[in-house]
């Protein structure tokens, strides 16, 4: 099942709706197969009748009107109501509100990255991160999706269908991962120049691991340990990065770009576009426009040199 087309196409990709890991995605996956085979049957029926009507040698003499009624009226009247009833029940269940006390995550779409805010019963426990969502396995999580600018669409195919991020209004989605793993998500509503590079990662892990991760995220940023990282912090604070980015525990408190307090712990950079390592980080800091032309983050090619970019990267890399 995992491979098709003579082994070329993997059905279980990181972003494949054909590899469901949640009840919702699984229901829709089963429904897809039912509809697929039903459709194949109907298509074959129509084509066989069509060919036979033209090329059939001894066609049985049928009453044309009866054929119209049978195929055009009775067939849909028999095939579609069960589908409708199934879909109504399925959708009603999927759209039901999550259980009381479910973990709540607020996701805000920006051109072109995702802001992720975790909300806990005690507001002091809240924290903000970006482009990466961690979930406890086996628990329903309420995700409230909105937008800071244009319309985006929040979609993690292996977990659920998509929901649009509308400015001025929050939409709700319930996510429930049945197994641990990393699942890719991507913006699905065209949102401008870098719509293509507006992805994110969902990490599902056991409850204890999730809580450990959350505890780590709540902490302010750690102090730089190496000389280079200390130089990087100084450059970070003096080169205007703080206008847009927040690093909790430092004077950096900008809200325009992603929160970088624990950026070193993230799997990807530039909203799910690139792997997170210090070389990529340095290259992005030096010339973000090279990778994501049109994004708000300017190129710093003329502002500072490569060693400065590397020192900032070294600092950020330490922010685990």
């Amino acid at each position, binding site marked *: 099942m995992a491979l098709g087309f003579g082994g070329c196409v993997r059905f279980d990709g990181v972003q494949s709706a054909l590899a469901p890991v949640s009840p919702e995605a699984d229901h829709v996956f089963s429904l897809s197969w039912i509809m697929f085979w039903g459709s194949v049957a109907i298509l074959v029926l129509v084509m066989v009748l069509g060919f036979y009507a033209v090329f059939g040698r001894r066609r049985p003499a049928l009453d044309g009107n009866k054929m119209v009624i049978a195929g055009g009226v009775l067939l849909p009247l028999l095939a579609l109501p069960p589908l*409708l*009833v199934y879909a*109504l*029940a399925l959708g*009603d269940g999927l759209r039901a509100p999550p259980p009381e006390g479910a973990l709540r995550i607020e996701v805000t779409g920006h051109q072109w990255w995702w802001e992720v805010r975790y909300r806990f019963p005690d507001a002091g426990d809240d924290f903000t991160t970006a482009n990466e969502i961690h979930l406890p396995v086996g628990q329903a999580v309420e995700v409230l999706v909105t937008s800071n600018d244009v319309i985006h669409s929040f979609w993690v195919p292996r977990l659920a269908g998509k929901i649009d991020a509308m400015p001025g209004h929050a939409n709700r989605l319930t996510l429930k991962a049945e197994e641990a793993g990393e699942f890719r998500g991507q913006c699905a509503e065209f949102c401008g120049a870098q719509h293509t590079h507006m992805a994110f990662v969902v990490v599902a892990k056991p409850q204890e691991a999730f809580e450990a991760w959350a505890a780590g995220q709540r902490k302010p940023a750690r102090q730089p340990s190496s000389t280079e990282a200390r130089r990087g912090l100084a450059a970070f604070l003096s080169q205007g990065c703080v206008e847009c980015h927040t690093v909790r525990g430092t004077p950096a408190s900008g809200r325009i770009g992603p929160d970088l307090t624990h950026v070193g712990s993230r799997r990807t950079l530039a909203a799910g576009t690139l792997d997170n390592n210090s070389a990529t980080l340095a290259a992005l800091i030096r010339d973000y426009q090279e990778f994501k032309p049109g994004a708000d983050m300017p190129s710093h090619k003329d502002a500072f040199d490569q060693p400065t970019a590397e020192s900032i990267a070294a600092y950020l890399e330490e922010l685990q």
Partner: protein
Amino acid sequence: MLRRLHTGGLIGINLGLIVWSAYFVLLYALMSLGCRYALDAMQALGSNIITVALAAIVITTLAFIGYLTWLAYDTWRHADDNRTRFRAAVAGLVDGISLVSTVWVGAPVFMVTPCY
């Protein structure tokens, strides 16, 4: 009067679908307004008031289009010229598909919780 309207001209033969369209818009608009004012919290006849109101509309519309269908059928049966027969036939078929569409579009009212 209704019979002549229904089988007499180009607009009239579409009466079933016209009623169905009005019905569809009414269901959609009433539900949206009901949810806007959170009327689903109010109860009536053992269900929430939005569902009850929409169900009443579904049943009324079904009855009316059913009546139209009978009118068209009756005209078709007794028509003595081909032109009337043709118009009554089309009108009756239009009513038939309107009936089916009314049932299908009405089904969610009885199966889906309004407002989320």
